[in-house]
């Protein structure tokens, strides 16, 4: 384990979600909440804790695997790091730039061509247009769909779609990479192998990697530490 400064710190992080399909209980209640300033610390009807009493530190260059059943809170952890959602209690601090690869294909529009979508998705992932200009060839080459790059992506197969999306994501530059199950997606063994190579490259470059998966064997193979996530709580296991 690296002895650097931690790049991600969770300090007693609690996060709750509501089970009800409607967000608002009533307009009156919401109005009261607006004027009451302080966050309601307890649970009200239909709410549950997706994460509770979690404190941990992740250091530069570490690869951390998140393992747990569906609904255990893996994605919530990644979302908190990606700054997409905020904790109800406690603090999350992230000191380095994040490439939230939970968002592969984010902003893809079906009427736009593959190439156009590279620009849309790339900028959303935090790249500059100039940067994409430079990486364009490499992105297209990695995806392996050169012939179809000017075709609207509504005509893509789901495999092609994933290849393109992942290829863009893997080209984004950051210090922390978040993956959510995507390495296990698809039957495309050849491309999957390519992706693992890329992840290993990131690891060699001392990037911090967090990835969630159902596949414990795979996680054990590539991770320095594994967080077992269950019902919103984490137990940590070091891999030697």
């Amino acid at each position, binding site marked *: 384990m690296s002895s650097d400064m931690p790049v991600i710190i969770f300090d007693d992080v609690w996060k709750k979600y509501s089970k009800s399909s409607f967000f*608002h209980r009533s307009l009156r209640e919401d109005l009261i909440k607006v004027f009451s300033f302080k966050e309601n610390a307890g649970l009200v009807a239909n709410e549950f804790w997706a994460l509770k009493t979690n404190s941990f530190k992740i250091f530069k260059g570490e690869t951390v695997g998140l393992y747990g059943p569906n609904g255990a809170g893996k994605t919530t952890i990644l979302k908190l790091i990606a700054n997409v959602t905020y904790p109800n209690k406690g603090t999350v601090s992230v000191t380095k730039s994040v490439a939230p690869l939970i968002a592969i294909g984010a*902003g893809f529009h079906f009427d736009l061509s593959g190439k156009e979508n590279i620009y849309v998705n790339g900028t959303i992932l935090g790249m500059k*247009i100039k940067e994409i200009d430079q990486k364009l060839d490499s992105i297209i080459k990695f995806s392996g769909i050169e012939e179809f790059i000017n075709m609207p992506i509504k005509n893509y197969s789901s495999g092609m779609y994933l290849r393109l999306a992942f290829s863009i994501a893997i080209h984004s530059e950051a210090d922390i990479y978040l993956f959510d199950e995507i390495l296990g997606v698809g039957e495309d063994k050849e491309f999957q192998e390519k992706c693992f190579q890329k992840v290993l490259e990131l690891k060699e470059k001392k990037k911090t990697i967090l990835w969630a998966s159902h596949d414990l064997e795979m996680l054990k193979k590539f991770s320095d530490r594994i967080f077992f996530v269950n019902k919103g709580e984490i137990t940590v296991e070091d891999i030697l």
Partner: protein
Amino acid sequence: MTIIFKNLCEYYRKYKDLYYIFIWKEFSIRYKQTSLGVIWAVLQPLSLMGLFTVIFTYIMPVKISNVPQPVFFYAGLLPWTFFSSSMNYSISSLTNNFDLIRKIYFPREILPVSRIVVAFIDFMIASGIFVVLLAVHRIPLNWSTLYFFPLVGLLVLFTVSFSLIFTIMNVYYRDVQLAINFLLQLWFFMTPVFYSTTQIPAKYKMLVSLNPLCFIIDGMRKSVVEGLLPSWKEFSFMLCYAIVLLIISYRVFKAAERKFADVL
């Protein structure tokens, strides 16, 4: 003051590419599958202008003002169309992009604002038609015409503020999306597009002047068509009104932003 300026520069540097791409995306998607393309930008104000001219010349002849009817209507329809289409486009910008919002962070106002920019491109195209219309009716341009530009600035400020407010409300209450057409229709009738502010009885004038579009449309007609300069006092007041409204709506938007991912 310098801090605000510095922050704005930083913001611009960081997100200008994202704005650019979103604007380009909205613009090209909108016209990709249409055969008339950007002609749609002028079709709405032009057809309504034609309709009003026919109604108020032949069916229900009324003399509204001394300026030619088509010019009078178009001068009102031009800013109105920008305002209403901005509202229409931007209101669903967050709910349509829920997938994006739930997965990745970027300043959320980019979504509604880039749609307003697309409406503004339409507005600029429609303004070109306005110039042609003025030339056809031999209405001379003079110095007061320049007043059109600060009024456009005011229009943009108000449009962004109202759009932000309605866009947030739509995240929490989808009723807004259903109500917006009806609401814009009401708003249209309360705005002097097909009538003149001089026709409003004095006792309702105060009420009407709460509607910033009233001031903007009236000002555009006076300055461009009639060659009159409105009072700077009134303009300064409206500018303060616009800035305060923008600050409030932006603050509320940023405060609500933190919850979007959980609510959508």
